[in-house]
C-alpha cells in the first residue's frame, strides 16, 4: 500500500496577487509539485497595441502597484532605445533616485511585513508588532521614507505621474531634495540595523547552484540600466534578450515560464544582483554584508531577506549620494521623435530583471509589446527550490511542511499581479 499525502494551499498569503501551491507525495517522494498562478489575466500586451508610444509608462505602471517605477523605467528605456535617444546623466541620476525610493518601499514592505514573520513565527507583521512594536514601527518609518522619495519625484508613491519617455515632466529643485536628506540619513542607519537584525534569523541549510541573471554596470550597483550578465558566461545587451531567453505556457499557470534557451531555469532578484555585482556594492553595504557573514556569493534563497536588507543600505547610500551631487537639469526631458523601430528596455525591479520590448510604427503607435516580469522568470526556480526542499523533509507534519514551503515561495517576494500577462505569439514560433 502506497502512502499518499497532499498539501494544497489554495490561496497563498503575504504575496502580491493570487497564487497557490500543490504538492503530492507518494511514499515521501514528490510525485507532483506546482506553484500555480491563477490571478486572472489582464492582457496588457494586447491592450497596448494601437496606443501611442508615450502612453506606455502610464499604462504599464498599472501592471503593479508595488513596483510601478520598474515598469515605467523599462518601458521608457525601450521607447528611448526605439527612438535612438539617450538621456543626459543628470536625468539618469533622477531615474536612479526615484528607483531607490521604490526599492526602499518594496524591500521594506517585504522584509518587515511579508517575510520576517515567517522566521519569527507570526501570521503577519501586524501580529509581530504586538511583541516588537519598536521594530515594526521602524520598518514602517523606513518604508515611508521610500514612499516619500517616490512621492516627491513622482508626484505620488503608487503609479507616479511625473515619469515620461525622454525624462520627466518636472524636475525638482535642489532644496526640495535636500528636505529629504535628514530622513534618508535616518533610513541609512535603520537599514544597517535591519541587516544586523535579519542576519540573526535561523536559516535552513539549503543552497542551490542557480544560474543567476542580473543587470550589470561597471561603475555602480545596477538598478535602472545595464547589460544582462550571468554566472554562466552570459553578457548581452538588452536587444539580445529574445535570442537568449524563451518562454513556455503551461496549463497550471497564467504566467509564462521563462528559461535560458538550451539550459533551463535561471534566477533573478536580490541573490542574483548581489552575487553578480558584489564589487559594485556601496561602501557601507559592503561593510554590513561582511559583518552579516555573507560571502561574495549567496546561494541560500532563505537568506534573500539579508540580501534585501543589504540592498536597502545600497538604496539609501545611493539616494544620499545623488542628492549630494544634484544640480537641477536645465530641461526636464529630451525630445523624443518616434520612428519605425523595435526597442528593448530592462531594469532591476525589486524582484529582479524586468524586460520590455515594443515595436513602434513611424507615427508612434505600438504595433506589438512584450513584457517579461521577474516572477515569471523565477517560476521554474521556485518550483525546483520547492522540490529540492521537500527532499529529506517529507517526514515533517503537514502544517509544518506547508508553512516552510510557503516561506520558500516568499523568498522570491513573488509578485503574481505582475507575472500574469506576458509574451506574444513569438512563443509559438520558438
Amino acid at each position, binding site marked *: 500500500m502506497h502512502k499518499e499525502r497532499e498539501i494544497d494551499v489554495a490561496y*497563498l*498569503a*503575504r*504575496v*502580491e496577487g*493570487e497564487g497557490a501551491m500543490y504538492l503530492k507525495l507518494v511514499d515521501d517522494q514528490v510525485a507532483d509539485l506546482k506553484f500555480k498562478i491563477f*490571478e*486572472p*489575466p*489582464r*492582457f496588457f*500586451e*494586447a*491592450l497596448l*497595441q494601437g*496606443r*501611442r508610444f508615450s*502612453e506606455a509608462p*502610464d499604462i504599464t505602471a*498599472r*501592471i*503593479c*502597484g*508595488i513596483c510601478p517605477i520598474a515598469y515605467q523605467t523599462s518601458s521608457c528605456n525601450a521607447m528611448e532605445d526605439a527612438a535612438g535617444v539617450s538621456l543626459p546623466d543628470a536625468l539618469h541620476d533622477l531615474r536612479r533616485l526615484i528607483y531607490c525610493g521604490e526599492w526602499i*518601499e518594496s524591500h521594506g*514592505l517585504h522584509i518587515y*511585513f511579508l517575510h520576517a514573520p515567517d522566521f519569527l513565527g507570526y501570521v*503577519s*507583521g*501586524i*501580529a509581530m*508588532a504586538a511583541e516588537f512594536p519598536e521594530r*515594526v*514601527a521602524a520598518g*514602517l518609518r523606513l*518604508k*515611508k521614507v521610500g*514612499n516619500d522619495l517616490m512621492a516627491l519625484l513622482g*508626484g*505620488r*508613491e*503608487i*503609479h507616479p*505621474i*511625473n515619469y*515620461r519617455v525622454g525624462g520627466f*515632466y*518636472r524636475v525638482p529643485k535642489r532644496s526640495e531634495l535636500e528636505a529629504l536628506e535628514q530622513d534618508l540619513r535616518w533610513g541609512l542607519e535603520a537599514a544597517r540595523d535591519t541587516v544586523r537584525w535579519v542576519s540573526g534569523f535561523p536559516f535552513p541549510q539549503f543552497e542551490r547552484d542557480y544560474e543567476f541573471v542580473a543587470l550589470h554596470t561597471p561603475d555602480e550597483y545596477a538598478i535602472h540600466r545595464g547589460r544582462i550578465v550571468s554566472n554562466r558566461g552570459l553578457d548581452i545587451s538588452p536587444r539580445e534578450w529574445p535570442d537568449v531567453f524563451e518562454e*513556455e*505556457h*503551461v*496549463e497550471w499557470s*497564467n504566467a*509564462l515560464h521563462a528559461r535560458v534557451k538550451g539550459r533551463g531555469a535561471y534566477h533573478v532578484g536580490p541573490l542574483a544582483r548581489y552575487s553578480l555585482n558584489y564589487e559594485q556594492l556601496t561602501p557601507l553595504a559592503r561593510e554590513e554584508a561582511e559583518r552579516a557573514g555573507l560571502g561574495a556569493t549567496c546561494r541560500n534563497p532563505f537568506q534573500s531577506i539579508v540580501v534585501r536588507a543589504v540592498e536597502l543600505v545600497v538604496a539609501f547610500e545611493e539616494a544620499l549620494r545623488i542628492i549630494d551631487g544634484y544640480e537641477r537639469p536645465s530641461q526636464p526631458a529630451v525630445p523624443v521623435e518616434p520612428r519605425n523601430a523595435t526597442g528593448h528596455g530592462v531594469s532591476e525591479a525589486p524582484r529582479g530583471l524586468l524586460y520590455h520590448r515594443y515595436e513602434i510604427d513611424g507615427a508612434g503607435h505600438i504595433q506589438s509589446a512584450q513584457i517579461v516580469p521577474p516572477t515569471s522568470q523565477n517560476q521554474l526556480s521556485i518550483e525546483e527550490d520547492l522540490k529540492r526542499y521537500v527532499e529529506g523533509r517529507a517526514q515533517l507534519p503537514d502544517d509544518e511542511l506547508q508553512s516552510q514551503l510557503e516561506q520558500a515561495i516568499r523568498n522570491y517576494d513573488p509578485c503574481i*499581479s505582475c507575472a500574469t*500577462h*506576458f*509574451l*506574444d*505569439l513569438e512563443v509559438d514560433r520558438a
Partner: protein
Amino acid sequence: MNKRPKLAVWKFASCDGCQLSLLDCEEELLAIAETVEIAYFPEATRAVVEGPYDLSLVEGSVTTSHDAERIQEIRAQSGALVTIGACATAGGIQALRNWADVSAFTSIVYAEPSFINTLETSTPIGAHVEVDFELRGCPISKYQLLEVVDAFLHERKPNVPRHSVCIECKARGTPCIMVRDGVPCLGPVTQAGCGAICPAYDRGCYGCFGPAETPNLDALAAWWEGLGVEMPDLVRALRTFNAYAPEFREASERYAQRT
C-alpha cells in the same frame, strides 16, 4: 472580549495598488489594526477569521466566471461593501477588452489560449452586486480610504467630494495648465481626490479618478479640438483606467464615430 468590527480586504483583477494603500498608511496602520479586527487580508496576513464581516473593501474587476460567483458570496457575508479603485469601480484598464474580441486578446498574449479561463468583459463590482460606496482613483487616495473606513465605522456618510480636479488646482494655487500653456487636461471632467498633482508637475490631468459629477465632456472636447488634439487622441485619453465609467464610455464611443 473582542467587539472590534471585522474588516476584510478582497482582491479581483487588479494591480494590488489600492490594497497597498492600506499598508502605505504607515503612520496609521497600527492604530487601524487596534480599532478594527483585520479578519481577512491575505496580502498582509496568513490568519483568516471566518465571516461575516462588518466592512469589506473590494479591489479589482470581475473578469472570470469564478470571480462573478465569488463576489456574490462576499456580498452575502459583508455588512457594508466598499469598492476601492478604478478597477472595482469602473472595470479598470483591463476593461479595454470590452471593445475588443477577447479571444484575439488571449491569442496575442498566450501560446495556449485554451488554458485561459476569462470572460468577454471586465466589469465593475457594482455590475454584479449592490455596493454601499465606490471609492474612486487609480490608485485611490489613502486619505480618502481612511475617511471612508472611519465613516463606515461610525455609520456616517463619507466626505468624499465629487467635484472636478479644477477645484483642487484652485485650492493649491496652480495656474490652469490648459489656459496658460495650452496643454490638454482632463481636469475639468475628472473627479478630485488626487490633490491635482499632474498640473502641479507641468502635465495635464489624465483622468485617474474617473468622471466628476455631471461632467461636460462636449465642452472639454471643443477645448481640446481648439488646442489641435485629433479625435483619436481624445478617444484614447478617455479610454484608460476609467474607460468603462458610463460618462467616459458614452463620450468616447460618440467621439470614435467622428473619426
